[in-house]
């Protein structure tokens, strides 16, 4: 199996079938390994390094019906300079918004390194015809989005129509061209570990630059087990094709401790090359606040109240 230049990072369907054929996951071993990775000793300097990584890997997100341009303005200001009282804190990687707010976010971030990501393809359900999804995605790109977060077609996936799911991602990848494509699996709805790995591999084979755990719209969004399996899928895909894909974890990651555990999983399963915003992201709305508090605590030995940090 190999990729051709014209195909970008897309693997053809028959090779994809081979990749997902007879897929098995050892559930007990998986849980045991993930639990043991949660006990790594991250303190002082290594913790500070981890917290800075997390900030620089964050996609600061707001995906609500009530979002306004004013709110996006506030959030992008925070994204560019998360902690005005501390110069050493890096900017976040990106802001993640609905397509209608992309142009505003783009305007706000024009003089910074912060990218603008947009959800599309009828996020969060993905229950719409492909034509609509393409329009939705095209609109976000025309507005200037640097990255596109799409959802997989879960309807097709559960009906066993993997081909349809694959074809949709391929079609959206064509629309995206060089724009970064992140594919959301919604692992909380996939039910089994085999499904998570299968969906990961299909998404990667269809040309995703990133695979992402969750929309953040359901209660059981992300899990460390899912992140581990996705890391394994990324590794498998790299072994087969040589393409290095990224992972974005999102949905329910609210505190630094949890985020650090995800970082450990990626560090140990994929290596330190992946500890970099090009290959690993956190999608979060409230995580940044906790990380900023922890950084402050490491510096001053005292916890600060939330109102000392920017809102957004």
């Amino acid at each position, binding site marked *: 199996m190999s990729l051709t230049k014209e195909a970008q990072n897309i693997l053809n369907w028959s090779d994809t079938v081979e990749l997902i054929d007879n897929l098995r996951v050892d559930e007990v071993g998986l849980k045991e390994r993930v639990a043991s990775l949660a006990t790594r000793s*991250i303190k002082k300097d290594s913790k500070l*390094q981890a917290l800075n990584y997390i900030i620089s890997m964050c996609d600061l997100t707001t995906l609500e019906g009530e979002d306004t341009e004013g709110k996006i303005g506030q959030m992008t200001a925070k994204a560019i300079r998360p902690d005005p009282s501390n110069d050493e804190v890096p900017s976040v990687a990106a802001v993640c918004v609905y397509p209608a707010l992309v142009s505003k976010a783009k305007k706000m971030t024009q003089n910074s390194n912060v990218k603008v990501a947009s959800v599309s393809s009828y996020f969060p359900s993905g229950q719409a015809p492909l034509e609509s999804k393409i329009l939705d995605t095209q609109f976000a790109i025309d507005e200037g989005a640097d990255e596109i977060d799409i959802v997989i077609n879960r309807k097709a996936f559960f009906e066993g129509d993997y081909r349809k799911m694959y074809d949709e991602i391929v079609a959206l990848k064509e629309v995206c061209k060089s724009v970064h494509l992140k594919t959301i699996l919604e692992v909380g709805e996939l039910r089994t570990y085999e499904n998570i790995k299968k969906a990961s591999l299909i998404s990667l084979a269809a040309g995703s630059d990133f695979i992402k755990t969750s929309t953040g719209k359901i209660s059981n969004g992300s899990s460390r087990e899912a992140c581990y399996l996705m890391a394994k899928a990324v590794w498998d895909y790299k072994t087969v094709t040589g393409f290095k894909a990224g992972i974005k974890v999102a949905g329910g990651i609210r505190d630094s401790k949890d985020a650090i555990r995800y970082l450990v999983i990626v560090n140990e399963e994929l290596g330190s090359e992946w*500890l970099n915003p090009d290959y690993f992201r956190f999608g979060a709305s409230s995580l940044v606040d906790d990380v900023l508090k922890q950084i402050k605590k490491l510096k001053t030995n005292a916890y600060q109240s939330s109102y000392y940090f920017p809102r957004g």
Partner: protein
Amino acid sequence: MNKWEYAESIESSSIVNIEKKYGIFIDGKFQNANSKKFIKTISPSTEEVLSSVSLGNEIDINSAVESAKEGLKIWSKLSGTERAKYLFKLARLIQERSREFAVLETLDGGKPIKESRDFDLPQVAANFFYFAGWADKLDLSWNAKGLKPYGIVGQIIPWNFPTTNAFLESCASISNWKCCNFKTR
């Protein structure tokens, strides 16, 4: 980007002190071996020489047996309750310093710290507690009235669970009056 280094774990190798050389333990203290021979013990993961351990010869063994015979005279007069006290104390001492033992076991044997910390050492302590419990109950069980001290036992310890096996067999024997064994590895 730089590599991300973790903080030192509580099972770091710096928590243990290993001396350069060890004699053989006879008569309650480390003594120079008659053979004057040493073997190096290395850490399988780094191949670093951890220490040198004495290699005993026939004369060393004989003196160990002599010492054990002396010990047996005192030990065999103790009641089961008294013997149990020693074993319980040993069990608690092992529990207290379990982490250090686990690190040593891992350095020496190369097994994952997870195994030595979470299985080997807890098992050692549990064995001591178990046999400590038996010491004063032997007379009450299996028609075992009138048990007599057996004497000296020699033990050869296999390699795969050194600490566990060494202690398991020792505590079993001590509990049952066999008393004062010595071991070669």
